[in-house]
């Protein structure tokens, strides 16, 4: 399924003054996600149509329970769509098996969570290296060094999550998410558990990744100040996107 869209380029790294014809890296078409509460079907997504171009930094905002996280999990392949299509880098997740979606997630997606979700038994080095290990190419010391230096983690690598501040933990989580050079970063309220100062650090880093490396980022947030770091803000309500969809 080839979907193309004409836009004004959102990321400066990709910009030129002329309009570009770029294939979206994420496309959802009439995307439905239904959860089951006993015998009752609860729709979290009700036919979402959403597109993200390579190099975009998109924030998804909306009230609790509007389906933001569900959208992120379906795009990330953690949840299966109930109906509709989800294309990630040209791969239709709705038609893929769990194993295929796992493989796609391993190679093309990096997650950053609100609660950091580091493995408590591993130190910072281990938490980052495990992503490389799962990726399958083994430990790449050069890439590891570049990432940890960029995120200011060089001095904290031997510390376990319990020995680090929230900001440091989130930076480790970002390092883990980007160490394999995924095409898309999916960030679920990455500053939700951080104070203002650490929130600014984390958001600056995400913004830097987007601007300097052209990293595609989709971020869920409640915070308009956080959303301001992104190039585009999409609002959701009751399982649908109510604005912010780029024009075809």
């Amino acid at each position, binding site marked *: 399924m080839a979907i193309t869209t004409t836009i004004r380029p959102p990321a400066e790294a990709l910009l030129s003054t002329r309009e570009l014809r770029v294939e979206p890296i994420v496309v959802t078409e009439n995307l439905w996600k239904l959860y089951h509460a006993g015998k009752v079907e609860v729709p979290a997504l009700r036919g979402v149509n959403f597109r993200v171009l390579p190099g975009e930094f998109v924030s998804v905002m909306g009230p609790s329970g509007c389906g933001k996280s569900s959208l992120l*999990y379906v795009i*990330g392949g*953690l*949840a299966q769509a109930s109906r509709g299509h989800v294309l990630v880098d040209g791969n239709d997740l709705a038609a893929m098996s769990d*194993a295929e979606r*796992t*493989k796609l*997630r*391993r*190679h093309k*997606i*990096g*997650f950053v*969570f609100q609660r950091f*979700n*580091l*493995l*408590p*038994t*591993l130190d910072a080095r*281990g938490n980052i*290296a*495990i*992503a*490389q*290990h*799962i*990726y399958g190419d083994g*430990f790449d010391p050069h890439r590891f060094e570049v990432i940890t230096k960029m995120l200011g983690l060089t001095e904290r690598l031997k510390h376990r999550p319990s020995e680090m501040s929230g900001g440091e933990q989130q930076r480790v989580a970002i390092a*883990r998410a980007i160490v394999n050079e995924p095409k898309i970063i999916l960030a679920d309220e990455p500053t939700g558990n951080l104070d203002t100062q650490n929130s600014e650090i984390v958001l600056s880093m995400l913004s830097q990744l987007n601007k300097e490396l052209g990293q595609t980022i989709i971020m869920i947030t409640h915070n308009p100040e956080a959303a301001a770091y992104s190039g585009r803000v999409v609002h959701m309500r009751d399982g649908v996107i109510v604005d912010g969809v780029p024009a075809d």
Partner: protein
Amino acid sequence: MMRRLVVNNVLHRPIRTIVSVIAVGVEVALVILIVGLTSGLLQETAKRIEGIGADIMLQPPSASVFLAFSGAHMPIKIADKLRELRYVQAVAPVLLQFSSSGGVDIIYGIDPKSFRDVSSGFVFLEGHDMREPNDILLDDWAAKAKHATVDSTFRVLDHDFHVAGIVEHGKGARMFVPLSTLQDLSGSRDKASLFFIKCTRPDHTQAVMDEMRPIFPGYEIRPLKDFLSLMTASNLPGLDAFITSMIALAVSIGFLVILLSMYTTVIERTRDIGVLKSIGASKGYIIRALLGESALICVIGIAVGIAMSYAGRAAFLSSFPTLSILITPDWIVRSALIALAGGLLGASYPAWLASRKDAIEALSYD
């Protein structure tokens, strides 16, 4: 990286790991000690009987190779008939009596002269041979276990014996009393439980046995050089089943403890499993990580179990010197494999559960 994850996870909950390791250790030690005790006793008994030095043993029809289980008696006059056979050098009638007072013992009632002719005599560590009806000989292990000394009174079979001598172990039984005394005490006058036969040369054994068979039809005629191979658990009714049951019980302990331990691990690490899934870990990766943990616990447990086996044997032998526990490399390897297989089997269900966990539910687990 996987190794690091596994090791760190195992060390994360030390008490749970220690309990699991001990459970596997107990499993391994139980298997090694039960098999070791059984085979040790059988082998030691066989060696003692071989150590008599006879060539042939004659027992009543259907008598067991396990002498303590042979209740039937034969007329002692059979000895005279045996002595008439060609190539027979000496015949020693023996009456066996099972005693369970102060331990499990088999007492040999012997005629000192004929037993000496067959066995080349005892090696006396202390004292002298039996001279009086109430004399008893103990081997060194029995004397140590029962704290008996020469010239002391030793009560067995509800009878006070005089310890005439302490002999080197390895001549059939651990206690020897005069044949006639034991016949009186057991109400088996002029009876014997078995006859040991010494041939003029060992290579005459087959000829003597061939000559004996038509004279003693149905009797158990066994060459003693094969005795060791006959003393196996499979030849003792129920023993194999007992060993198998005990091994199954031991394995069940290890299996259940690992199952429970890994199950609680999976519950506790639900969020971590979600994290691994979110970074692209396959089901196989998650299963391997959990089986790796179980395997590591098993390997440590096996090492602990082997150490426990040797410590247990030392403790047993210090309390019961007449026991023999044979720890063989063969059974160490087998018990290790049994424990490893049980541990992996025990961990496989929790690992399977973990691999099938819904990533989103796992990530939101508190």
